[in-house]
């Protein structure tokens, strides 16, 4: 990659031309252009983050005006010893694991099939992609209707195919089914995301590799496991990274679907955090909670990116 365009111009043109270039210097323009974005991000992201860290050491309650006391690490201690926190972590882990599992499985399978280039595959790909672009809150709210016993379409379809009476179960109301109800909707929404990324991976594999394998008389099965899968793996891992971060932050869809219930069985960390911060108004406590979540997602993502880069290098 050649350096700065100005250097290249300087080399390629006689000195007279260089002097005709007027206006600000590149350095000034660079700062002028980058500055506003950085300032806005500092104001809306970094400053609040620092404020949050600061609040996390206090007993501040945003709905009460009283002396704010610094209480050291007590908030952190309380959060990490609170069984509710661990329960919400568990709910999040369940949600994360199964959504990613199903989305990878179905997403890859769909991409593999679409890559067979049947007639009209573009049209159907676009249709499959639709759910992921829609507002999770609005769609999630409507799914509570689909999930209703008897009148809901989902229960009726289940009855149609399995014979289980549609009014005999409630996806959202039952403790054993509710965690799956959110997994199903998230999988419905986000499988296309994994599919698109896998499809890009599959399309990046040059035909010549398969032709070479064919010459070596490698079986289709062997080609799949030794060529297709390793070539798509970096793409797949990237998809998992995105889905992992997004679902760790999950709030809108689940809050509309189950509201964290029944009981607290689908209370993901974000929902738990929202309750502490905006219902119980334990601002200091919630700030510490937010810091813990941020550190967790950031830490896990960094480790994962390292692994991803290793796979890419291979």
């Amino acid at each position, binding site marked *: 990659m050649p350096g*700065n365009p100005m250097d*290249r*111009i300087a080399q*390629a043109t006689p000195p007279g031309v260089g002097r*005709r*270039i007027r206006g*600000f210097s*590149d350095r000034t*323009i*660079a*700062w002028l*252009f980058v500055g506003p*974005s950085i300032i*806005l*991000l500092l*104001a809306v992201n970094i400053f*609040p*983050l620092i404020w949050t860290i600061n609040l996390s050491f206090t007993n501040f309650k*945003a709905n009460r005006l009283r002396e704010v006391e610094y209480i050291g690490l007590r908030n952190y201690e309380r959060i990490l010893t609170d069984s509710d926190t661990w329960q919400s972590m568990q709910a999040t882990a369940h949600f994360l694991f199964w959504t990613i599992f199903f989305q990878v499985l179905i997403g890859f399978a769909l991409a593999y*099939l*679409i890559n067979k*280039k049947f*007639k009209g595959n573009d049209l*159907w*790909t*676009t249709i*499959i*992609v*639709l759910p992921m*672009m*829609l*507002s999770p*809150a*609005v*769609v999630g*709210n*409507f799914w509570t*209707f*689909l999930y209703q016993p*008897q*009148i*809901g*379409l989902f229960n009726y379809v289940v009855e149609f195919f399995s014979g289980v009476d549609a009014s005999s179960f409630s996806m959202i109301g039952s403790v054993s089914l509710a965690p799956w109800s959110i997994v199903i909707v998230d999988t*419905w929404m986000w499988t296309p*995301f994994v599919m*698109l*990324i896998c499809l890009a991976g599959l*399309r990046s594999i040059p*035909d010549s590799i*398969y032709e070479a394998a064919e010459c070596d008389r490698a079986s289709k099965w062997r080609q799949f496991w030794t060529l297709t899968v390793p070539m798509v793996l970096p*793409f797949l891992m990237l998809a998992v990274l*995105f889905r992992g971060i997004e679902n*760790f*932050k999950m*709030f*809108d869809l689940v809050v509309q679907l189950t509201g964290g219930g029944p009981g607290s069985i689908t209370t993901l960390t974000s929902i738990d*955090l*929202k309750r502490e911060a905006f219902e119980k108004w334990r601002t200091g406590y919630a700030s510490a909670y*937010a810091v813990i979540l941020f550190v967790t*997602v950031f830490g896990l993502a960094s480790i994962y990116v390292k692994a991803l880069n290793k796979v890419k290098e291979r």
Partner: protein
Amino acid sequence: MSGYSVTEPSKRQKWFAGLLVITYALVTLMPLLWIIATGFKSPEDAISYPPKVLFEPSLEGYVNLFTTRTRITEGMKEGLQPPANWYEQIVRDSGTVIAGPSRYGQRFLNSVIIGFGSTFLAIFFGTLAAYAFSRFKVPLKDDLLFFILSTRMMPPIAVAIPMFLMFRQLGLNDTHLGMILLYTAVNLSLSVWLLKGFIDEIPLEYEEAALIDGYTRFQAFYKVVLPQAATGIASTAIFCLIFAWNEYAFAVLLTSGSAQTAPPFIPTIIGVGGQDWPAVAAGATIFLIPVMIFTILLRKHLLRGITFGAVRK
């Protein structure tokens, strides 16, 4: 296709793959079609058992979405004028009269104002920053770019706590300006990353030629680079717009009335005994259709947009 190719799937494989994918697509489309259909059902049809696939279309859901109604009492009956138009007729048939407009129109307008406002700002600042990152030696470039991306990793609720306090101090709670600034900042990370990718693809030679022709940097930027990046800017703008349009967490926590957008509002549309599903579905349909259209328009750049430019087709 000429001749025999080992990589070209056979007719039977294609047929089989097509069948499976189309089946999946139809299943995945069902909830969306159900939303649209429910919007045109009467309240009785919407909650019938078993669910009705065929039904007599009704505009009651749409009328209910845009109006508030009161039940006709015995005393009111004499004084009532005959219904003046079709929607009054619909309302009258269900034993109510129109009391006034609902808040849906205003919430929808809020979504439009906040969506377009934040998109414009995110694109404006994002294009400038992306150009600088793409063309100049910005000190700590990689760190800054990563910093911009990392702002997206924070759970929205975690950001909302200090934002709520900050907005309260500045009087920005429940204002259009507050939401526009917030969404601008959130969208900036997306717009900078995506636009940097698009601008990186524009050959340097165009600008160099312009600079040699005596253009200043600014002129080269807006007369040469901007027109070249137009497609990229347009698709980035749509992604920003869709994000702001769909966003719920900040909206529900930081707005309550005058600046509330549609996503927190639609689930609160209630009728007699719970949610008024035809009205909810009608509201959802009006709200979701624009995004579906944009998705179809964007299909070529979709992958790029949703991966922050990490995967380019």
